[in-house]
C-alpha cells in the first residue's frame, strides 16, 4: 500500500493530475473535468465510457456506452422520445373519429392524456440520462487520475464492492427512488401540467383533444369580486369560501385537539390516579379501530333518523335537530367528532413528553404560590409548544388535508349555498378536489386546487419547520 503511493508520487511529477472537487455544483465539476481531462476523457463527453475502456475498465465503460446507445435509440426511434416531446407541445392533433354508419366503431387516434404523460416521462428520462452522463464523466476522469498517479483503476469487481461500502447509499436508494419517481414525481408533474390545460368534461382528451391554456384557470379561481358581466364567478366564489372554512377548521381542530388531549394526558398522569394504563388503553381503543369504521358508525348515529335522534325522540324531544343537515350545526358537529377522533391521539403523543418536563420548574412555581391554571399556561404550555412545534405543524397540515372526517361524515354537505360550484358547506379544499375529479371531471380545476393546497401547506411548514431547532441541529443528539 505504502509503496504504491510512493510510485504514484513519482508519476505525479511527470504527468500532472489535478484534484477535482466533486462537491461543487455540477457545471463547475464538469468544467473542471473538461479542462483537466486528457484527450480520452474529453472524448468521453461524446462517447460515454471511452476513457474507462481505454484505461482497462472495460465492463464499466461498455455499460456506459450501451446506455448511451439505448438512450439515443429511444430518442430517435419511431414513436420515440423526440416524437413524444413534439406531441407534448401540440397535445395531439388527430382526434378519434367515428367509423362509417351510425353505429360505426370509434377509431382511436391521438390521446392527449397519453401525449402529456409520455412527454413528461421523456423529460424525466432525459434528466436521468444527464445524471448518468455526468457520473460516467466523473468515473472516466477518476480512471485517468488513477493512471496518472500510477495506480491501477478499480476492477469491475472492486467497483461493485464499493457499491456495498462507500457508495452504499446509491444501492439502497435506487429502488425506492425509482418507485417514487414513477408513482409520485411523474404523476405530480403530470397533474401540475393539467392545471395549465383545458382538460375537463368537455375536453375528454381523445374525441375532443386537450390544449394548453396557460394561467387561465388560475385566474378564474383566484379572481376576487364579481364577473365583468355581472354574475357571480362561481369558481373563485367557491374557492375563497371553501378556503375560509378550511382554515377555520384546521386552526380549530389542531388547537382544540392539542389542548384537550394534553389536559387529558395530564389528568391521567396526575399523582394518586390509579390504573393509569387502563385509562390510557380505554381512550386509545378509539385510535386503534380503523378510522373509516368509527366514522361511518358516527355518521349512522348522527343521521336524521339515526340512533341519537331516535333516542331523543323517545325521551320526548319531538323535533330533534338534524345534526349533519344544517350548515352551521354540521360545522360544529364535524369539529366535535374530530375532537373525538383526535384527542386520544394527542394524549398518546404528549404523555411521554409531559413526564420529561423538569420537576424543579413546578416546584419553583409552587414556592412562588402559582395555582394550577397559571402553572399550565406559564410552564406546561410553553414547554410543550417548544418541544412539539414540528408535530403541531404536521397536525395543522394534516387537518387542512383531513379527508376522512369530512368525506365520511357529511360528504361535504349540506349543500345549501347554490352559488358554489360542486362544493357543500362543510367541504374542505381536499374533499372539493376529490369531488371535482370523481363527479364532475373538472380535472384542470382540480389540479389548480391541488397546486394551491400545496402552496398553502408548503408556506406554513417550510417557514416554521426550517426555523425549528430539530431541523437546524440535526446532528446534536448523535
Amino acid at each position: 500500500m505504502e509503496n504504491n503511493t510512493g510510485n504514484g508520487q513519482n508519476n505525479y511529477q511527470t504527468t500532472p493530475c489535478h484534484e477535482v472537487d466533486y462537491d461543487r455544483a455540477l457545471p463547475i465539476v464538469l468544467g473542471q473535468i473538461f479542462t483537466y481531462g486528457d484527450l480520452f476523457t474529453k472524448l468521453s463527453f461524446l462517447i460515454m465510457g471511452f476513457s474507462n475502456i481505454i484505461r482497462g475498465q472495460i465492463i464499466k465503460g461498455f455499460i456506459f456506452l450501451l446506455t448511451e446507445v439505448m438512450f439515443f435509440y429511444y430518442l430517435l426511434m419511431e414513436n420515440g422520445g423526440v416524437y413524444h416531446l413534439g406531441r407534448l407541445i401540440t397535445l395531439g392533433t388527430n382526434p378519434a373519429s367515428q367509423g362509417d354508419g351510425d353505429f360505426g366503431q370509434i377509431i382511436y387516434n391521438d390521446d392527449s392524456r397519453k401525449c402529456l404523460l409520455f412527454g413528461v416521462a421523456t423529460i424525466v428520462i432525459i434528466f436521468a440520462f444527464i445524471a448518468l452522463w455526468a457520473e460516467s464523466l466523473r468515473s472516466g476522469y477518476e480512471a485517468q487520475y488513477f493512471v496518472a498517479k500510477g495506480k491501477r483503476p478499480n476492477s469491475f469487481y472492486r467497483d461493485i464492492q464499493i457499491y456495498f461500502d462507500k457508495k452504499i447509499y446509491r444501492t439502497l436508494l435506487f429502488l425506492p427512488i425509482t418507485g417514487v419517481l414513477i408513482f409520485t414525481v411523474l404523476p405530480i408533474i403530470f397533474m401540475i401540467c393539467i392545471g395549465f390545460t383545458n382538460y375537463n368534461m368537455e375536453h375528454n382528451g381523445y374525441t375532443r383533444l386537450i390544449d394548453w391554456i396557460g394561467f387561465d384557470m388560475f385566474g378564474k379561481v383566484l379572481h376576487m369580486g364579481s364577473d365583468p358581466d355581472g354574475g357571480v364567478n362561481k369558481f373563485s366564489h367557491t374557492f375563497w369560501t371553501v378556503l375560509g372554512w378550511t382554515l377555520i377548521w384546521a386552526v380549530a381542530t389542531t388547537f382544540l385537539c392539542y389542548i384537550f388531549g394534553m389536559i387529558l394526558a395530564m389528568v391521567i398522569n396526575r399523582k394518586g390516579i390509579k390504573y393509569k394504563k387502563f385509562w390510557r388503553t380505554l381512550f386509545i381503543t378509539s385510535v386503534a379501530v380503523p378510522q373509516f369504521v368509527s366514522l361511518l358508525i358516527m355518521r349512522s348515529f348522527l343521521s336524521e333518523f339515526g340512533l341519537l335522534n331516535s333516542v331523543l325522540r323517545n325521551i320526548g324531544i319531538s323535533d330533534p335537530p338534524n345534526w349533519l343537515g344544517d350548515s352551521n350545526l354540521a360545522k360544529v358537529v364535524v369539529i366535535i367528532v374530530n375532537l373525538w377522533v383526535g384527542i386520544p391521539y394527542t394524549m398518546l403523543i404528549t404523555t411521554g413528553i409531559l413526564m420529561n418536563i423538569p420537576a424543579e420548574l413546578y416546584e419553583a412555581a409552587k414556592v412562588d404560590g402559582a395555582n394550577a391554571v397559571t402553572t399550565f399556561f406559564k410552564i406546561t404550555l410553553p414547554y410543550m409548544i417548544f418541544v412539539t412545534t414540528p408535530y403541531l405543524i404536521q397536525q395543522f397540515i394534516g387537518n387542512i388535508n383531513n379527508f376522512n372526517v369530512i368525506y365520511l361524515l357529511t360528504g361535504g354537505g349540506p349543500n345549501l349555498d347554490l352559488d358554489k360550484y360542486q362544493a357543500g358547506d362543510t367541504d374542505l379544499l381536499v374533499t372539493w378536489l376529490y369531488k371535482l375529479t370523481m363527479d364532475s371531471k373538472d380535472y384542470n380545476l382540480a389540479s389548480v386546487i391541488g397546486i394551491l393546497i400545496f402552496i398553502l401547506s408548503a408556506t406554513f411548514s417550510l417557514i416554521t419547520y426550517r426555523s425549528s431547532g430539530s431541523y437546524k441541529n440535526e446532528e446534536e443528539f448523535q
Partner: protein
Amino acid sequence: MSEKNTTKFRSKRKAQNTTDIITYILLSILGFMWVFPFIIIILISFREEKGMDLSYVIPKTFSFQNYIDLFTVPIGSDVTFFTWFKNTLLISIVVTIVSTFFVLSVSFTMSRIRFKMRRTFMNIALILGMFPGFMSMSAIYIILDAFKMTGKLSSLMLCYSASAGLGFYVAKGFFDTIPKAMDEAAWIDGATKWTVFTKITMPLSKPIIVYTVLTSFMGPWMDYIFVAYIMRTQYDKYTVARGLYMMIDREHAQTMYTQFCAGAVVVSIPLAIVFLSMQKCYTEGLSGSVKG
C-alpha cells in the same frame, strides 16, 4: 405547632381525595363516551333483527347469524366478504415486504451516511409529501392504463408500496438515536457499510422494524379510495375497506347494516390488537422524531 401542621396536612389530604374522586368520575364519563360507539357496534353485530335505524340499543335476540352471513352470503353479484378479506391479506403481505425494505433502506441511508445530495433528497421528500394524495390519483390511473395494468391486484400492490420510501422520517429518527460510535468501531475493524447495515444496525432496531412492518401491513386495510378508483366496478377485486363501505351505501344499507357491523368487528379486532401491542414503539418512534 405540630398539631396545627397535622390538621393542615389532613385537610390537604381530604382535598386531594375529593379531587381524586372528581377525576375518577370525569375519566369514567369521558371513557364511556369514547368506548360507547364500539360497544354499540358489537351489540348490533350480534343482533338478529335487520335494519339500520332502530330506536333501541340492546338487541331483542342475539345470534351469530350476521357473522355467518358475512362470509357466506354473496353481496352484489356473487362476491362475499371472504373474497375481499383474501384480496386484502394478499395485497398487504406483498406491500409489507416491499415497503419495509424501502423504508428501512432509505431511513438508514439518510440517518447514517453522509453524501452530497442527502439534504436535497430529504427536502424533496418533504415537498412531495405536501401535495394532496388524491391529486395524482387520476394520473396514476393513466400510467397504469398505459402499461395495461388497471384492474389487477398487482397494480394495487404497486400503488401502495412504490412510494413507501418517502415515509422514512420516523425510522430515521430512531436510527439517529443509535450511537454513531458503534458504526465507527466496526469500520475500524474493516467492516463495510453493508455489513454495518445488516449486522449491526438491523439487530439493534427491532422496535422500529416491528413498527414499520405493522404500519405497512395496516395500510391496505384502511384504504377505500384508491381501490374504487382503480378497480371501478370489479367487485371481486375490492379490499375489505371498500367492501364495507359498499355495504352501507344507499343501496345496501337497510339490509346489510348488521352485517356491516359484524364486518367492522372482524376487521377492527385484529387491527386494534396490532395497534395496542405496538403502542409503545409508536410513541417512542414519534417522540424520537420530535426530539430530533
